[in-house]
């Protein structure tokens, strides 16, 4: 291809020049152009005012849908009461004006705060319940709001509706003054509200708070083990979601001039949920488009007489269709289109004789796609086989001289009449690798859970790094410096590998959600630092090739490594591993053993692991505890244990068992 001789066609020239701008600038440019168009089109084009009204409605719908993405999409807390929060925002706005004479936009903070507060109240209930119980709780809340809150005259006002008088910002007739009743002007306001909501949500998503949200959704247990206060984040999600919905309500009543209780009933909540689902529950752009779609449908049904009155049926069919046929919704369509568009663009450029865009298609960080698979194939399948470096088995000095990391004293765990763990004590010392073995059903996992805080022991004490941790919750123990992996992999499916690991930097990042929303310099700096730290661990464990892949679909051995890496990223000096070798073959198990020893040598971590594979455990640990039927059968160095007759009997099942306590 002789570039020098061929004169580029003007169109292509622009395209390549455009492509040559850095992606960041390109994106900013596009955003700028798009926003400008979005604001200006009612003035530039001869758009009928009703269409502008639809655009306003679309912005309001989009904003409520954004609040649902946050709560239901990201944190997984299903909300059937979103319209109630919108209503609170609307009626509070009217109430504030009635009582205090304060109008738009000064009533905004209080209106938004009240809907956020109510949402937090609902969240308090949500803390205690999970899954579908939560759905029912929100349903009950919506029912109560319908029947009680929005029927109360002290809240809604006499006459069954709330109204706001004429709203003009600025001096009437003077400059500048804005008549909010001109749809084109109010459209700018509504669009700003939507942009604000998207901006905040988008910033949150890519921050520590956002990752915590996804973590809480993915696995509350794992999230807690990373130090995340699950309670706090759930409440936060409710609060922010309620605030955004309240903002939509505030805008709605300012734009409409009035609000009636019927607009915020249970059926309306279902309508908003439909919008969010059709848009693709996880995707911000998707739900904005869905909001516009539904607002547009209203207009179409208005204009076309034949369709008039069928909107209920049609939206029902639409929702069902999306759910059954294309669950990822509009976002999924968008992702597919983008991929196809990208490949078409590549083909086009190739055909024209130009090399494809140098940036290429980076394997998609599929943060938003729920079902998307990745663009581009990955050549290397990383597994444990490639990870281990040369082992350096270090034999610790005299055990009793080392500091105690974990002390479990006389732990007993009783479930009703069943005694799962009976008076077991164990100690883990600094720098040790301690193993906990026993036949199936011996109570190992129950003991583990009691130590890490998942089960409350009926009696006994747990001390971690010298502190009494007996009453502490899982995340509080994590703060003390305990990390954990799980027998059943508890990675966060909504995040890719990199973000799973990044979530583990939670405790080392001290910025708060407000800083994330506003994107302060400090939060950016903390983010950078965390990312670098994660990159180091990725390099160490050679996970670089899978770093940007979604977690689902990766080979099992890789997943085990990722979970281990996640525990390491927390920087916890003490890590508990629950059957880390389960599911691995002999070669992988060997490499795992070597890896553990290397990690102990290089990073100085203390390890406690449950294992079934006795050979592996004896090879890697310094000290072992054996439990059988809930009781401590034996403890000692691996050599001592291997010679212990009672242990042998327990494993081989001989009738006479002599219990020995070391």
């Amino acid at each position, binding site marked *: 291809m002789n570039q020098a001789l061929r004169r580029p066609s003007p169109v292509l020239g622009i395209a390549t020049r455009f492509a040559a701008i850095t992606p960041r600038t390109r994106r900013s440019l596009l955003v700028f152009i798009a926003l400008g168009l979005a604001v200006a089109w009612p003035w530039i084009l001869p758009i009928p005012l009703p269409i502008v009204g639809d655009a306003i409605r679309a912005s309001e719908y989009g904003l409520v849908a954004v609040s649902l993405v946050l709560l239901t999409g990201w944190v997984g807390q299903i909300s059937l009461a979103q319209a109630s929060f919108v209503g609170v925002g609307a009626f509070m706005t009217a109430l504030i004006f009635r009582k205090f004479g304060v109008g738009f936009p000064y009533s905004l903070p209080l209106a938004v705060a009240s809907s956020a507060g109510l949402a937090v109240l609902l969240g308090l209930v949500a803390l205690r319940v999970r899954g579908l119980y939560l759905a029912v709780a929100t349903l009950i809340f919506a029912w109560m709001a319908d029947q009680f809150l929005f029927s109360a005259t002290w809240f809604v006002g006499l006459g069954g509706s709330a109204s706001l008088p004429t709203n003009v910002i600025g001096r009437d007739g003077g400059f500048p003054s804005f008549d909010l009743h001109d749809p084109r002007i109010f459209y700018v306001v509504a669009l700003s509200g939507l942009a604000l909501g998207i901006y905040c949500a988008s910033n949150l998503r890519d921050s520590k708070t956002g990752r915590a949200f996804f973590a809480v959704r993915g696995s509350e247990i794992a999230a807690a083990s990373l130090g995340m206060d699950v309670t706090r984040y759930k409440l936060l999600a409710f609060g922010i979601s309620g605030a955004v919905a309240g903002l939509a309500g505030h805008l709605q009543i300012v734009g409409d001039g009035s609000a009636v209780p019927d607009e915020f009933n249970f059926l309306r909540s279902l309508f908003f949920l439909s919008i969010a689902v059709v848009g693709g529950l996880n995707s911000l752009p998707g739900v904005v488009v869905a909001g516009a779609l539904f607002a547009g449908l209203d207009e179409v049904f208005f204009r076309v007489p034949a369709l008039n009155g069928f909107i209920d049926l049609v939206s029902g069919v639409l929702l069902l269709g999306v759910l059954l046929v294309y669950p990822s919704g509009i976002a999924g369509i968008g992702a597919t289109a983008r991929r196809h568009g990208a490949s078409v663009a590549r083909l086009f450029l190739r055909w024209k004789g130009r090399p494809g865009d140098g940036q290429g298609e980076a394997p998609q960080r599929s943060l938003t796609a729920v079902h998307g698979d990745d663009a581009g194939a990955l050549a290397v399948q990383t597994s444990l086989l490639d990870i281990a470096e040369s082992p350096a088995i270090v034999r610790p000095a005299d055990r009793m001289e080392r500091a105690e990391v974990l002390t479990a004293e006389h732990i007993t765990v009783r479930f009703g009449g069943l005694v799962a763990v009976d008076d077991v004590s164990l100690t883990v010392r600094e720098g040790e690798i301690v193993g906990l073995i026993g036949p199936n059903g011996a109570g190992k996992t129950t003991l583990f859970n009691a130590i890490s805080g998942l089960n409350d022991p009926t009696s006994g004490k747990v001390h971690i790094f010298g502190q009494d941790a007996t009453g502490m919750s899982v995340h509080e123990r994590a703060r003390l410096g305990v990390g954990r992996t799980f027998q059943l992999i508890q990675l966060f499916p909504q995040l890719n590998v990199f973000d799973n690991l990044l979530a583990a930097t939670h405790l080392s990042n001290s910025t708060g959600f407000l800083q994330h929303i506003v994107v302060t310099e400090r939060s950016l700096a903390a983010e950078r*630092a965390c990312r670098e730290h994660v990159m180091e661990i990725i390099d160490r464990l050679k996970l670089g090739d899978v770093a940007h892949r979604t977690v689902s679909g990766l080979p099992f051995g890789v997943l085990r490594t990722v979970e281990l890496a996640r525990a390491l990223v927390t920087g916890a000096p003490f890590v508990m591993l629950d059957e880390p070798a389960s599911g691995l073959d002999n070669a992988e198990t060997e490499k795992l053993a070597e890896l553990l020893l290397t990690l102990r040598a290089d990073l100085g971590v203390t390890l406690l692991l449950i294992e079934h594979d006795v050979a592996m455990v004896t090879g890697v640990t310094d000290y072992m505890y054996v439990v059988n039927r809930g009781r401590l059968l034996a403890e000692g160095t691996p050599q001592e244990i291997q010679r212990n007759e009672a242990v042998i009997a327990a494993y081989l099942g001989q009738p006479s068992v002599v219990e020995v306590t070391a």
Partner: protein
Amino acid sequence: MNDATHPDEDARPQLRRRPAPPIGTAWAAWTAAALVILIAGLSTFTLGRQQVAAPTAGNQARSVTVGGTDNGTDAGSNGAANGADASSQSGGAQNPAVSGGGGGSQAVAAGGKSLKCAAGQNGGSTDTGVSGNEIKLASTVVKHGIGTSFLGDVEFGMLAVKNQANRSGGICGRQLNLTLVDDGWDPTTGQGYLRSFIQDGYFALAVVPSSEGLHKSIAGGDIDRAGIPVVGTDGMIIDQYTDPWVWPVSTSTNSLMHIIAKNAYARGARTFAIVYDQQYRFGVEGNAAFQGAVQRLGGQLNSDCDYPIVAGQNSYSNDVQTFNTKCDGVDFVALLLEPDTAKQWVKDGGYLGTSGKAVGVSGPQTLFTHDFGTGFAQNCPSPCNTHFWVWTSFNPPIPPFDTNPAVSGYVSDMGHTNSSADYENQFVEGGYDGMELLVKALQAVGPNLTRANLKATLDNISFDSGLSSPEQFRAGKHFANVSAQAFSLLVSNGNFDGFRYEQTGFVADPWVGQDAVSEQ
């Protein structure tokens, strides 16, 4: 660069990939741009309307009075009076506007050009939504969802009048173009559609039976800001009577409850009770009116017997127990409920007053339906000797009014429009009557048809369609229909035998506008 986690590390490994920038901005940008282009293209090419200027004060320059006489006289204009007589005699058929509409008098348009009430000479486009051959009217209707049962057929009443008017040549050569759109009685949708009508440049709104959206629009100030007349409404809620741009033809709930109390007192009741829907506006407003009326009459209404219930339940037995225990023996009970709730209340044994004193129980216009009559008959514990009276602001097609020429005209018009429509439904009749008011007012304005002129006409009009008591509107006084008459439900052996006129005549409300429930 801050490193919060590992202060003693020196070499930073090179990042293999730059962390991606805030996700979604490009995607959002593309989407936004595509959406913008799509919408812009669609609207430009398919709808292609020019932007409608918001109505300004400029259109109000002309203040032509009806018939050339000043405001405030009862007869209004000769033209209007002629029109009224003509309509009450011809049974609802509108005379061609050429002669009856008082066309000659206000024939001066802007610019001093002389106009005539005839096609081609009417001045053409005198205002928004008016052209030389067309007047654009619009309304929302209820054709799906809750509310269809008693509002669904109202559109046929409206169409009947419109078709008649158009068959007679229209109004000053302009045909009536009536756009009806179903909003399912949803307030948000309804307000949105009404705003669209306003922005699309319709001249006036007719009847608007879908009262939820209308209420929201009035409360939100849309109607007043646009200065668009809403003529012939039947929604009975107070704000329709206090808004300067709305002219209702039916009696308000407020007036109805005054009338009911007054009539009961006149028949001998001294102790009163009321059961009402506390979640609906008409319930709350009516209750306040009833309380005020009883107090002024000197009757007695215990707070225990001022009983709110929640609509739509499947059983009221507990409420009936409480109410009956406290209110047994009360002379008169008012039932301010919508039909389904009322049926259930009766069925569960709600006390219905002392029928021995021929006082008993009454309900408002909402209960004036065949459906409620049947339900009442089925559930009235037999032997059913309760005299259940229902009140209406119209002359229904029931003896002795069925021979009234206006009423029989109404019935035959309905037959021509839609033979299965329920013309006994008082809301349907109200829609017909409301449309008549609009047509008559349009005729009275004549060729120089502007919103301001229509408003001036309506604020000075006497309207006697024969379907209700004569009505009179004045500026600031839109309580034009303030009377009602009573019928009782005939029941034999659990069957509903129809309505029987109770010879009350049109009873007038002595306390018009009092006890109104208003915003703080």
